């Protein structure tokens, strides 16, 4: 509480409006002993610096969060990334998760799907159903969401280069369920730029890829207004070995590129900007991570308002999903991973995330088992309901340490963005390897620190024990691949192949024009053209990106 006029103004406007629209989870939030937990702690002497750098939650520059009441209003979405094997198996796991209190689905696709190959492609050998679910045609997608009401759940799909095809399938499934387009909620990752530097599931060269992304922005803007059209991801950049500063700098540089491309294509800034989402990593350095999330939010607000001139406050807000850092998990003493994940998840919550995936303890070994997935979800629930951190907004604000870290990250990440722009922008810097080198150098340094014991990883380079017991592992049966291929073969016989060919021809015809390709892809999907067939048409028109150093 404060008497400062700026505070009063915020309380009377943003806060009041928010409380009215989204009442808080409880009438009172208390400590044991009935003392009330303040909604928002502020300095006794609010000065201009405070207002410029921090402000109030739900208010520019959003350092303290994107909503005025944050988790007092609604907890973050507990969204567990899952998917493996076949659509039917994954469907079972989703329904299990929904039964246990997950509030959003997050679909993992296998690598052939992510790279636009059907399960019967040569390169798919050994990969079908391994790191996610295999989707070849609309039929698989129908199975995947069978008995899951797409008008109610929000679904996040980790799909990038062929995002348009999977989105088209999702839209058609929803339509078949009778869900109105306006009610479709969720996110596609659709962030191709980071694939070239960190994750590797690219198909087409950067420029045509950017065009597909822009087509999606435009189509969703007028058809599925509640769907997030991209999740600009620092997560994988960090997993590839970057520092926290590089994670923010490179992610926002990518974001700037997407915005600029869409503007160049004539899209309306304040229409598409609201549907940009972000995805960050929660790694082990607790305070640096909290500062990172806060800095990213402030930077994006400034970029959107000052650089691009966005006028709608929703365009200024950086909303993000977080996942705990898979690369910090160890195969040794796997239970330690639960503790790591807890700390990392805490940093995401203290940093104001909108949704969160917590990794499972056994992920350094294989796909997570059902039991370890449940523990990971319970970790979030303990933080949400027991730790008390969700009862107040941005609790670390004003810590000298955290604020200095936040400022430093903003400064250094801004500097990195500047260097990329001097180097001709993100695409040019990918092509000459500048970005890849930045990440590789950091990854190598980190590994050396571990080797030289400058950095201790418990159970790995210190506190080592001889382990006997092996945790149970989940494996994808090799038959899954053969079965999936058989299903695809049957379907290719049974569908109307003239219809398929015609829809693919129409797509090929228009691929090089500036017609929006989304409706054409929807038509292909509806005819049960396969993902591989659709991507092959586009490969023919756009070429393939095959190099990376």
């Amino acid at each position: 509480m404060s008497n400062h006029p700026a505070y009063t103004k915020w309380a009377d406007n943003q806060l009041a409006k928010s409380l009215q629209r989204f009442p808080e989870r409880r009438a009172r939030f208390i400590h044991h002993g009935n003392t009330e937990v303040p909604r928002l702690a502020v300095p006794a002497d609010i000065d201009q610096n405070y207002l410029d750098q921090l402000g109030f939650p739900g208010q520019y520059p959003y350092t303290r969060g994107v909503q005025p009441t944050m988790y007092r209003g609604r907890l973050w979405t507990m969204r567990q990334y899952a998917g493996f094997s076949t659509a039917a198996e994954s469907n079972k796991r989703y329904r299990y998760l929904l039964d246990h209190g997950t509030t959003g689905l997050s679909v993992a696709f296998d690598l052939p799907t992510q790279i636009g190959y059907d399960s019967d492609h040569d390169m798919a050998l050994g990969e079908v159903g391994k790191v996610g679910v295999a989707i070849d045609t609309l039929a698989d997608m129908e199975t995947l969401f069978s008995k899951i009401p797409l008008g109610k759940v929000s679904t996040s799909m980790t799909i990038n280069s062929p995002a348009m095809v999977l989105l088209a399938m999702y839209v058609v499934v929803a339509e078949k369920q009778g869900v109105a387009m306006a009610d479709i909620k969720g996110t596609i990752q659709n962030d191709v730029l980071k694939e070239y530097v960190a994750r590797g599931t690219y198909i087409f060269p950067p420029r045509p890829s950017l065009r597909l992304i822009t087509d999606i922005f435009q189509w969703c803007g007028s058809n599925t207004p509640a769907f997030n059209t991209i999740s600009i991801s620092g997560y994988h950049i960090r997993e590839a070995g970057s520092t926290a500063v590089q994670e923010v700098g490179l992610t926002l540089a990518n974001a700037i590129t997407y915005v600029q491309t869409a503007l160049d294509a004539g899209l309306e800034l304040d229409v598409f900007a609201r549907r940009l989402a972000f995805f960050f990593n929660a790694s082990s350095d607790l305070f640096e991570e909290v500062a990172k999330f806060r800095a990213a939010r402030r930077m994006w607000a400034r970029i959107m308002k000052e650089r691009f001139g966005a006028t709608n406050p929703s365009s200024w807000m950086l909303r993000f999903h977080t996942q705990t850092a898979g690369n910090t998990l160890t195969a040794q003493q796997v239970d330690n991973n639960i503790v790591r994940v807890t700390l990392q998840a805490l940093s995401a919550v203290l940093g104001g995330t909108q949704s969160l995936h917590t990794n499972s303890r056994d992920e350094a070994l294989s796909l997570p088992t059902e039991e370890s997935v449940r523990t990971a979800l319970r970790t979030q629930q303990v933080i949400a309901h027991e730790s008390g951190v969700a009862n107040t907004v941005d609790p670390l604000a004003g810590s000298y340490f955290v604020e200095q870290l936040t400022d430093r990250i903003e400064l250094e990440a801004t500097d990195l963005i500047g260097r990329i722009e001097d180097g001709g922008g993100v695409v040019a810097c990918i092509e000459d390897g500048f970005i890849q080198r930045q990440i590789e150098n950091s990854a190598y340094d980190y590994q050396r620190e571990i080797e030289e014991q400058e950095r201790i990883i418990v159970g790995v380079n210190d506190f080592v024990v001889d382990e006997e017991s092996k945790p149970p592992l989940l494996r994808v049966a090799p038959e899954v691949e053969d079965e999936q291929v058989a299903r695809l073969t049957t379907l290719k016989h049974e569908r109307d192949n003239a219809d398929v060919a015609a829809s693919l021809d129409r797509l090929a015809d228009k691929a090089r024009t500036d017609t929006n390709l989304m409706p054409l892809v929807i038509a292909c999907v509806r005819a049960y053209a396969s993902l591989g067939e659709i991507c092959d048409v586009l490969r023919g028109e756009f070429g393939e990106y095959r190099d990376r150093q």
Partner: protein
Amino acid sequence: MKSIDDILAGITAGQPRAIGRAITLVENQQEGSEAVLSHLDSLVCNYLVLGITGPPGAGKSTLTSRLIEQYRADGERVGVIAIDPSSPLSGGAILGDRIRMMRHAKDPDVVIRSMATRGRLGGLCSAAGSAVRIMAASGCSKIIIETVGVGQSEMDIIGLADLTLLALAPGLGDDIQAMKAGLLEVVDLLVVNKNDLRGAENLAMDLEGVARQREDKYGLPTRVCRTIASEGQGIEQLVALIAELESLHSESGEMNRRRQVSRNREVVDWGLDMIREKLEPLAALHKHEASPQKTAVQLLQKLWLDL
């Protein structure tokens, strides 16, 4: 695959394993390398050695991959020697050029070999020169040497090529200015790659200006060619230009002159390598009383007697 005869037979049969082994032998100057090399010349047919140099990131490897494509379409067998610098600290190297040429990995008529500079003076030339001959003996009619255009040893490599092409691209910074000075003197063709990027037009015009000045001095025009290697654009024109220069040089005798010069250089390289090998232990044993220069004379005289 132990005997030299096997290796030689394998080379003529175009067997990848034999070619690979043979290059390793000569690169490491292992036993048998001389025997391999001395039998090669009789096997070698007509071939053209094309040098591609330029700053990192200009698109040399991508261009190389495209040239391979073109030459393969004409039914030619192609060899590539891709050279990257060794780390001065550890002597190791990461050789990454092949990444951009992997689309040819399964083509038996494309022979690619990555080499590190190994910080040798001259030695690289003998190794690369031998590799050229091994590839030629295996039936390669086009052999491309890719090297970063900095440093003396890379400049020497250029001497191995019948024709040299300098690849540049916009946005690579000031290095280009420095490179232009020395390299423009020795290259036969200028390629402005990444013609899709901003700044390509300026770079090309700039280079055309420089090329015109050179025309006055030597009477031979340096052509400037524009390409988008990543999309395969401009490659046909480039191949045509290369062919044009090749026949020009063959007719004028320039090709033979160059081969003679490069052959001489290789002889000198081999000689220097051999002398070094003998000289170093001698120098180590020698009591240094006279000046270094005088000592060298004494040692060489001693060597002279020994050889």
